[in-house]
């Protein structure tokens, strides 16, 4: 006979305010098999847990039901507690009286009755719980980091320095990401490349890191500790091993009028190119869409010139299969192209540019060598209007969130401009100045007070051209909405940060969840900020939400530490809540008839063939069996199996059947 202990938590007032906990406890005590039913203010507190532990010992409980908050919150807590009291943790179940009852209903008898029904249901379930042992699975101590921006770089280095192998893949021909495009960084105004490039080189030279640029994740199979990644290494059309990176080809390529992505279209590049001088690896790649040979079938000048004879026009994409134990997503972000703002005349007016373009103009290694010239005529602009919140915090534009970095980089832009063009005028239209961060507010103050950037609180409604000038019409809300009109030579839009294109597809490949803006979702907004709800896959940097450099780096190190933690043991323990095929007495051996219709429902390929042999070793039947390492416990095969030969622990046929019956019937 079962000996169940039931513990009703008040959660302070959270439950007891609407549910009559005492009554629930009393009613539940009437259920056969319940030897103890009591309520207490805080079950999760130390005294609360002690109460449970004592009860387990003193009442020789065979099952424990804790009726409190969501099991997604405290199930591990209480299972640990009963385990410490010597009861198998899987004989403890939780009832969700808070999120699913007290918080969503009014204080009345119905609510208390619902609470009673919910507890009753789980009590009956627990009577059918089995003592289970956790499953051990081996861990491949090698990590895959997707994205070679500052977050990916930091994460890869941290993991590698902890002594584990890392595969770093980057979609572009070089690592570096957006940070490598920046001129100076706030709030210190130190040169972005000066701090980043040493790290990039370290990646290239680190003995624990294998770098694949110009590569993308094709597919990911498996599960925590045992992923199997397929990587498409796109053809660079040259043999990296023998290419010396002399760059001769890039200088001689006749096709040299291609807008340079790295320069945000402000400069040109050749068809065979290295994205930027400090690129890692410093090996060119042929842009097949623009290369004359690929388009017209002749040219091959680069091939003729190459002293190392490294050009390979017929080089195919390479598919690499790699086993890894953990994956870190660091695919970063992008910014809204200003074509998004017809009212600001982008595309129509060359001199309305976005933040990243300004970074290139201000960068010493940029198209203008760091001299701020306007794209249209190369004149040095005397007046620049910076528009913060271009798209961000604008529900009407579908981006209600704050892009976070714009306030700071706009201040920086204004500053840089003033440093370069002392007599120039910098106007900044802003909604609020969000400078929460170490030395951030001081920085924006400096822009305003020392460098004399002219901040106007209000939005820009319209930008149009009038005899060679850009007329910016906005409102100054501090002068009670009075309209302001500024004649500018250049306008810089601090356009919104958005998720990288393709991040949705990637999320689906990896089965991680993402929000409506296609930013990846963390497992818990506060307590698991760098993990996803898919075990073994972590998040780093701006692929999760807009982040500045220090935040991205911090997140990267956080993700790295999660990976290092996972790798600290050669095997990891998993919940044994997985499927299994029944075994019965001979001559049947199992009710499984071996139709194997279940094989194709399993997303993890966990269903295998097991041969049952007689004494003479002859196979008398072949039945399904489940690989406990691969099974993740979704139970789809269980519901499919006609003979109910597959069952799943924790949600067994008997358990769920009993729950339905118990929930709907009187005792």
């Amino acid at each position, binding site marked *: 006979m079962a000996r169940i202990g039931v513990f009703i938590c008040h959660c302070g007032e959270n439950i007891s305010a609407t549910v009559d906990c005492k009554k629930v406890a009393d009613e539940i005590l009437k259920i056969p098999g319940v030897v103890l039913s009591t309520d207490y203010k805080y079950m999760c507190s130390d005294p609360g847990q002690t109460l449970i532990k004592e009860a387990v010992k003193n009442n020789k409980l065979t099952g424990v039901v804790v009726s409190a908050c969501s099991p997604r919150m405290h199930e591990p807590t209480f299972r640990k507690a009963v385990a410490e009291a010597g009861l198998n943790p899987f004989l403890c179940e939780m009832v969700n009286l808070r999120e699913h009852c007290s918080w969503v209903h009014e204080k009345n008898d119905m609510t208390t009755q619902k609470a009673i029904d919910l507890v009753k249901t789980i009590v009956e379930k627990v009577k059918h719980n089995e003592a289970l042992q956790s499953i051990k699975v081996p861990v491949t101590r090698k990590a895959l980091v997707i994205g070679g921006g500052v977050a990916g770089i930091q994460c890869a280095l941290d993991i590698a320095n902890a002594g584990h192998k890392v595969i770093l893949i980057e979609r572009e021909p070089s690592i570096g990401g957006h940070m490598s495009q920046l001129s100076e960084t706030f709030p210190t105004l130190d040169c972005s490349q000066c701090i980043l490039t040493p790290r990039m080189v370290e990646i290239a030279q680190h003995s624990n890191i294998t770098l694949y640029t110009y590569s993308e994740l094709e597919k990911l199979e498996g599960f925590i500790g045992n992923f199997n990644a397929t990587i498409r290494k796109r053809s660079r059309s040259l043999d990296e091993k023998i290419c010396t990176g002399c760059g001769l080809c890039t200088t001689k390529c006749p096709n040299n009028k291609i807008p340079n992505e790295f320069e945000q279209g402000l400069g040109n590049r050749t068809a065979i190119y290295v994205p930027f001088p400090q690129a890692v690896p410093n090996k060119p790649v042929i842009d097949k869409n623009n290369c004359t040979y690929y388009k017209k079938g002749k040219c091959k000048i680069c091939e003729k010139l190459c002293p190392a004879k490294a050009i390979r026009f017929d080089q195919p994409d390479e598919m690499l299969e790699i086993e890894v134990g953990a994956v870190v997503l660091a695919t970063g972000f992008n910014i809204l192209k200003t074509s998004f703002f017809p009212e600001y005349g982008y595309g129509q007016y060359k001199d309305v540019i976005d933040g990243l373009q300004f970074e290139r103009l201000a960068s010493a290694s940029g198209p203008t060598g760091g001299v701020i010239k306007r794209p249209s005529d190369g004149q040095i602009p005397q007046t620049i209007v910076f528009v913060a919140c271009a798209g961000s915090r604008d529900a009407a534009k579908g981006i209600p969130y704050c892009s976070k970095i714009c306030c700071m980089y706009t201040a920086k832009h204004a500053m840089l401009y003033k440093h370069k063009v002392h007599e120039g005028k910098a106007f900044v239209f802003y909604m609020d100045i969000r400078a929460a961060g170490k030395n951030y507010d001081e920085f924006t103050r400096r822009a305003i007070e020392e460098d004399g950037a002219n901040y106007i609180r209000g939005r820009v409604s319209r930008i149009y051209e009038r005899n060679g000038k850009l007329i910016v019409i906005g409102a100054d809300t501090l002068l009670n909405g009075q309209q302001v009109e500024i004649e500018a030579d250049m306008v810089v839009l601090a356009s919104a940060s958005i998720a990288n294109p393709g991040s949705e597809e990637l999320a689906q490949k990896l*089965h991680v969840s993402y929000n409506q803006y296609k930013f990846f979702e963390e497992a818990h907004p506060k307590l698991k900020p760098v993990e996803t709800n898919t075990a073994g896959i972590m998040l780093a940097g701006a692929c999760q939400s807009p982040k500045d450099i220090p935040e991205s780096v911090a997140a990267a190190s956080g993700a790295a530490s999660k990976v290092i933690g996972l790798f600290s043991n050669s095997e990891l323990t998993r919940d044994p809540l997985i499927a299994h095929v029944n075994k019965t007495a001979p001559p049947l051996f199992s009710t499984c008839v071996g139709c194997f219709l279940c094989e194709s*429902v399993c997303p993890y390929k966990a269903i295998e063939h097991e041969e049952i042999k007689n004494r003479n070793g002859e196979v008398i039947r072949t039945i399904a069996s489940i690989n406990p390492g691969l099974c993740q416990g*979704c*139970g*789809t095969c269980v519901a499919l199996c006609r003979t109910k030969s597959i069952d799943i622990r924790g949600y067994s046929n008997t358990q769920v059947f009993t729950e339905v019956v118990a929930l*709907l019937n009187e005792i």
Partner: protein
Amino acid sequence: MENFEPKIVAFVCNWCTYAGADLTGTSRIKYSPDVKIIRFPCTGRIDFMLLLKAFSNGADGIIVSGCHPNDCHYTSGNFHARRRWIVFRSLLDFLGIDTKRIVFSWVSAAEGAKWAEIVNTTVDEIKKLGPYKEYQLIAKEYLTTKEVINE
């Protein structure tokens, strides 16, 4: 049917709808206590026989809810479930079982408000329909003291 409080069972997956219902709680959105949740690892685990069991044990309505397509924690459980429900539902309908009493929905972990809405609209609908007399009558065949021989 003034004071009729329907018995409604909700079969939900652990990763999306269960979490969604948690969010309904944390957001303190109120809904009817007539709906009671039974937790499953995945909609793929939900055996159609359980829906029949719910009815034969006196349920007036059923909610089945899980992750939106492409969001399944197990990648495809909800796709398999969707197929199963397409077939099962057409069979029930063909047998004259009132499919208005079974509500299928996708509720993600972020859709606390949607969960509350699903629950309340379902409760209203079932209240309109009244108790599932036909099914409960056959279910009680040998359980009530009123006797029936094979007539």
